[in-house]
């Protein structure tokens, strides 16, 4: 009996091993068909940055294929890029604070400005910030400011004297707040402590308390549903980015947008080149194409972002144009979202606030 059992077990183990290898081979299969003869550019980006028309025109004019991968948050970008050690993408679009992290981790490489023909058109206000001094590694692609989207009927016209108390201590109405813990933390901190680089733990506690006491005024948390909530009269005021707001201005005429007078946050989407890519020709062709005046105008009109050049401003709603010029004037007073505390603390506070 002993003799017969041994081969049985051995063969079974072999078969199991075979199946495991086979299954994993199938899972890794997509990686093996990668090299294509057609020139392809791989862009890893937010879903609301490049409109279809511009990309189609680019593909037709240059014969280069563009393939998009999307992410929903800067955290996702960082995690995915670190996991593949920067391979797989030719262009990425980090926001301000993530650019700094990417530079520190050496995941992006310097831009060769001799191959760029539009540097002098870029708005100087958007350049030379602390996350990438002299813009060695990144260039601004779009930007937006944060402010109050409000129901003009409820406030009987334009919002008078917009300030941060409108969302932290609203009088007789409920608000919609952003659902991103980093943004919420920064906003509360700015309201309480002004512009800061880092917070002490006692300052952090006060921020936590403010966010918790804000909860009773909140109708809903949601970064994307803001305009919908206002248009359906669920709440008359919300904090949102200018692009989300202006995108819906045509559809919902009752909307208004205002920047708090104490100052606010600005977010610059930068374009950067991962360190491991070798498709430099394709990359610079794309960059020069996408920064052409007409293409900037079309892209920014589609998503109501602010353009990186003055000539790229599309003719949208007058409020949009007004806000663009006002924002540029007050730009030095604006701040960026930062990790004012470690990510773990931020998320822990957020869970505290929500529970």
């Amino acid at each position, binding site marked *: 009996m002993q003799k017969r059992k041994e081969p049985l077990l051995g063969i079974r183990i072999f078969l199991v091993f075979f199946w495991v290898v086979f*299954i*994993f081979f*199938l*899972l*890794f*299969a*997509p*990686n093996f068909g990668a090299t294509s003869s057609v020139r392809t550019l791989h862009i890893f980006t937010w879903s609301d940055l490049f409109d279809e028309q511009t990309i189609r025109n680019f593909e037709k004019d240059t014969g280069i294929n563009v393939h998009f*991968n*999307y*992410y*929903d948050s800067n955290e*996702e970008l960082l995690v*995915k890029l670190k*996991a593949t050690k920067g391979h797989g993408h030719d262009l990425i679009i980090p926001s301000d604070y993530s650019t700094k992290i990417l530079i520190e981790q050496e995941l992006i490489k310097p831009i060769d400005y001799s191959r760029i023909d539009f540097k002098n058109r870029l708005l100087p206000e958007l350049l030379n910030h602390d996350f990438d001094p002299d813009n060695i590694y990144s260039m601004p692609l779009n930007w937006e400011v944060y402010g109050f989207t409000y129901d003009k009927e409820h406030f009987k016209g334009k919002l008078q004297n917009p300030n941060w108390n409108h969302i932290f201590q609203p009088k007789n109405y409920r608000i919609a707040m952003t659902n991103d813990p980093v943004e919420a933390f920064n906003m509360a901190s700015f309201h309480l402590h002004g512009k800061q680089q880092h917070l002490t733990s006692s300052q952090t506690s006060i921020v936590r308390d403010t966010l918790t006491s804000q909860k009773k005024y909140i109708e809903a948390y*949601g970064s*994307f*549903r803001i*305009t*919908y*909530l206002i*248009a*359906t009269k669920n709440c008359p005021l919300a904090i949102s980015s200018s692009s989300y707001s202006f995108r819906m201005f045509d559809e919902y005429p009752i909307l208004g947008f205002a920047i708090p007078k104490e100052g606010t946050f600005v977010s610059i989407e930068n374009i950067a080149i991962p360190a491991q890519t070798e498709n430099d020709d394709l990359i610079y062709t794309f960059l020069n194409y996408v920064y052409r005046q007409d293409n900037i105008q079309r892209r920014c009109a589609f998503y109501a972002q602010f353009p990186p050049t003055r000539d790229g401003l599309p003719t949208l709603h007058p409020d949009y144009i007004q806000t663009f010029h006002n924002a540029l004037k007050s730009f030095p007073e604006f701040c960026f979202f930062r990790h004012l505390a470690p990510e773990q603390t931020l998320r822990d506070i957020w869970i505290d606030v929500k529970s």
Partner: protein
Amino acid sequence: MKRLLVALTYLFLYVPIVVLIVFSFNSKSFPAPWDSFTFHWYHELFHSKDLWVAFSNSLVIALTSTFISLTMSVLLIFFRASGGKVGKFLALYYGNLIIPETVLAVGLLGYFTMLNIPLGMPTLIAAHTVLGLGFVIPVLYSRYVSLDPRLVEASLDLGASPLQTFFKITLPLLRPSMIATGLLIFIISFDDFILSYFCAGSNIQTLSLYLLAVIRSGLSPVVNALSAVLFLFSCGLVMLFFSPKIRSRIF
């Protein structure tokens, strides 16, 4: 009195869907009240590229994972029919019921990331197949075990080989269960949301994720139109499930 309560319950179940479908023909988008009849949103629906990509992805994933689940369970039963011992291992599949889907999704996400497997269609199919296995195998196995063994004996006595017996006797007897369970796991996979939320990566868009993106940013009448279409689709599947051949064997 009883009938009234039952009617109210069904009203509760159906009023939202019916309202949604009726307003899919409304010419003004929500939140406007009824304006006039139009097929405009259906037109937009059938021309929305994103939606169809998501729909076809979901369809492919559901069909593939259902197929793999059913095939593997049939092969497992074949192993049992050929005298293998499976009984103890069956308990492995009860884990599917005890563990919430969220935990499985989180586990799979960590697992794939750790092994550097790129998240995409293959990983989603693998994940959905696990979901399906948990249903198919216990059901088919217990159905197999409760089959009359004399039928198989008779077939062997009459000269058929074990292989022929399996294909001509056992499988046809299992077919109603297979179809019913297959439909069930197809729909579970097609409508599945949690696994896709964690394990789809950023490149694959499934129908559920698309709907979530739309809902998170407000409502769109195109979704109304989509719900009407999907509702009809579900009706069709349920009618299949309820056809007399199968129904008597389930309930």
